[in-house]
């Protein structure tokens, strides 16, 4: 399998976290803004009642015989009733001299132009003070009456607490909604990336065409790089394919020359020791070319097993073609290849790999079979699609059956027969890549039986 890439964070999580963080910030902001706004409004409410109280007292002020009389209404204080039973304090001054009320109630430093509202500490409590003044004109007197009314803020803070609680739960609800939205948005945003990944993953191993599906503009550089990479990969793959082909050609062609000459010479030479040498030469050439071929095959199979081509094929047709191809070789040893196919065996798989694997099995059977024997090849569909190859040779050494399919291992009785250990390994790898297995056993008559199932 391909090496998994290094992971550092997740784009989706980062997006979600950013959105959620933003939402949390907004929720907090909302909380504070609404709270301070509510505080302002509540304060305005208290202020307006205090103002009404102050003005109802001021309005009642009259100057009678230079004496100030203030017969203020009962409502001046009753309007200050609150559910929290807030305390009420007041002070009435005439030109800076206390006429009535609480002498120690904080007064404005600037008596000439008092601020209308003031928040101060009185008797250990925070009070809101509203102050107003009025000038009274008598016959020959001019006097200034200043009235301050103060109230504690218990009801105000109760209201504020209640608003805070409401706003907090509203903010939390908003935040939760935003969290849900964030997840939705982040998955929607990440969807094109997922689609791209899927379309790349679904491609066959040979498919190195550039990606042409439209993508969001932010992903275009990635897709462009990917396309460039694939183009280079394609180039380098075909280059190395050409290189391997060229190398094989360079090696195999001289080998073929040598082999041909050796064979020709063998026919012309009479002296037995020279003939023996030539035969060894031919055997060595055969072995080296076969080993090289199988090594390349095995490498190719290992590569392809990671990226199986999935095509619908008929196992029977595939084996039949192989048998036909191998018949001339079998005939040279007077060996009969008997093929039995009970019915079409459809399966999804990689034709090239399957062909290679089964050819290796039949090749092996041909190698180990004696002249004028029969090799039975049967293709069956149930329980799993499988190909069984039975020969009439010496069979597998019983103590080595388990090891036989291991790479490069060779049976004891294979001495003198050109390399075949890799053939079984290839077959087993192909079977495993298709989710199947390779089973080795000996038949009752003593021959080898290999069952390749997928």
């Amino acid at each position: 399998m391909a090496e998994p890439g290094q992971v550092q964070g997740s784009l989706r999580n980062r997006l979600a976290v950013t959105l959620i963080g933003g939402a949390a910030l907004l929720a907090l902001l909302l909380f504070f803004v609404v709270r301070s706004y509510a505080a302002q409004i509540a304060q305005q409410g208290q202020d307006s009642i205090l103002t009404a109280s102050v003005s109802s007292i001021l309005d009642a002020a009259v100057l009678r015989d230079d004496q100030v009389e203030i017969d203020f209404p009962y409502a001046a204080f009753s309007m200050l009733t609150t559910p929290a039973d807030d305390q009420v304090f007041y002070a009435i001054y005439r030109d800076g001299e206390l006429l009535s009320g609480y002498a120690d109630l904080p007064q404005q430093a600037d008596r000439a132009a008092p601020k209308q509202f003031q928040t101060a500490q009185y008797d250990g409590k925070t009070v809101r003070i509203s102050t107003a003044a009025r000038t009274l004109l008598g016959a020959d007197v001019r006097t200034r009456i200043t009235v301050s009314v103060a109230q504690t803020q218990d009801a105000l803070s109760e209201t504020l607490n209640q608003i805070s609680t409401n706003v907090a739960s509203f903010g939390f609800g908003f935040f939760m909604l935003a969290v849900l939205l964030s997840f939705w948005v982040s998955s929607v945003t990440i969807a094109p990336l997922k689609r791209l990944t899927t379309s790349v993953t679904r491609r066959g191993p040979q498919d190195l065409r550039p990606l042409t599906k439209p993508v969001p503009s932010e992903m275009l550089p990635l897709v462009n790089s990917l396309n460039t990479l694939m183009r280079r990969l394609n180039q380098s793959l075909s280059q190395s394919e050409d290189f391997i082909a060229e190398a094989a050609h360079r090696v195999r062609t001289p080998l073929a020359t040598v082999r041909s000459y050796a064979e020709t010479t063998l026919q012309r030479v009479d002296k037995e020791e020279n003939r023996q040498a030539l035969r060894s030469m031919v055997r060595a050439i055969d072995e080296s070319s076969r080993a090289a071929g199988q090594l390349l095959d095995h490498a190719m199979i290992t590569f392809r097993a990671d990226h199986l081509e999935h095509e619908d094929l008929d196992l029977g047709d595939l084996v039949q073609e192989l048998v036909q191809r191998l018949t001339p070789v079998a005939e040279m040893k007077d060996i009969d290849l008997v093929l039995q196919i009970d019915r079409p065996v459809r399966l999804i798989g990689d034709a090239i790999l399957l062909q290679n694997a089964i050819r290796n099995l039949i090749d092996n059977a041909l190698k180990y079979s004696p002249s004028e024997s029969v090799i039975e090849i049967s293709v069956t569909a149930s329980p799993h699609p499988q190909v069984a190859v039975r020969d009439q040779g010496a069979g597998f050494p019983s103590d080595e059956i388990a090891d036989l399919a291991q790479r490069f291992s060779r049976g004891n009785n294979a001495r003198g027969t050109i390399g075949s250990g890799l053939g079984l390994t290839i077959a087993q790898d192909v079977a495993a890549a298709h989710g199947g297995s390779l089973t080795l056993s000996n038949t009752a008559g003593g021959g080898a039986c290999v069952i390749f199932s997928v």
Partner: protein
Amino acid sequence: MRYIFCLILALWPLALSAQNWEDRQIFRGAALHDTAANTDAVQLRILSSTDTAFFIPIIRRFLADRPSVSIEYLVAGSAQIDHIFRQAPAQYDLVISSAMDLQFKLTNDGYAQPIEDLVTPDWAQWRQSLFAFTSEPAAIVIRRADFDGHPIPQTRQELIEAMRARPEVFRNRLGTYDIRRSGLGYLFATQDARASETYWRLTEVMGNLGTRLYCCSGDMITDLANGKLAVAYNVLGSYALARSETASALTVVLAADFPTTMMRTGFVTASAPQPELAKEFIRHLIRVQTQAVDPESFLLPPLIQSQITPAQSTIALGPALMTYLDRLKRRMFLKEWTRAIIR
């Protein structure tokens, strides 16, 4: 009964003795009755405007469960209480008074401490500090003998007409609070004046006929009983009914037009030497008036229980109570009242 209650009239040799108390009694728990001179005992000092007789069953019941507690019960006029208390607030654990306005102002001025876990109707408490425990209407008490053959007036207007009809009977035989001296009298007067102009007309009629002014309900009822008075206006009906020897001779009329109703209130002082015990006492007060199982244990009219909100004529506990306590307002009100009633 395991406990014996002692009623001791002590002669306390302290600076307080300079004070001119209407009454002063010390109640001791059962465990203390033999050690009269024990000064280490936990003592609760209650400053009250209510006659001792009304509080004896309440205090006894309280001490029944607390044998090692003693209570000093000090009685003064409602206006006096305000004066006495403001001079030495740390010497008293509880202040109980019928002058709602003065009680309210004391609480507003921060002299009371809250009892957070006490559950009472909203209208019967203020700032969880000032607690009402009675509902007592101001009554017109009539000496029945002087109305023989004449209808008993049911409203202030009828009273005015009755007085105008037979001025010779009522001349100098009318009584009411001297609101300059009585806090409760001032409260009733200001609330009456606020409610209706009839009050001033009545006051003027009473002034024309000649009215005796009293400091306390008790004295007025005594003078009604002995015939010095024919009518007493704005008397606490409960006091009249409580005196069995007068009950037959007097008729208590609650003015049908607007019976001004006062609530007796109490609070634990902010600087109470025994705050927990004092709170216990307030809880006890609320409990006994609520239960009312034993009519003998609570002699005062309990809070109106049938209604969620008090009757409209009940004086509300709120900042408005401070209106007539204002120096300017009080001066004006007293000036007008004096002009009306004193000829």
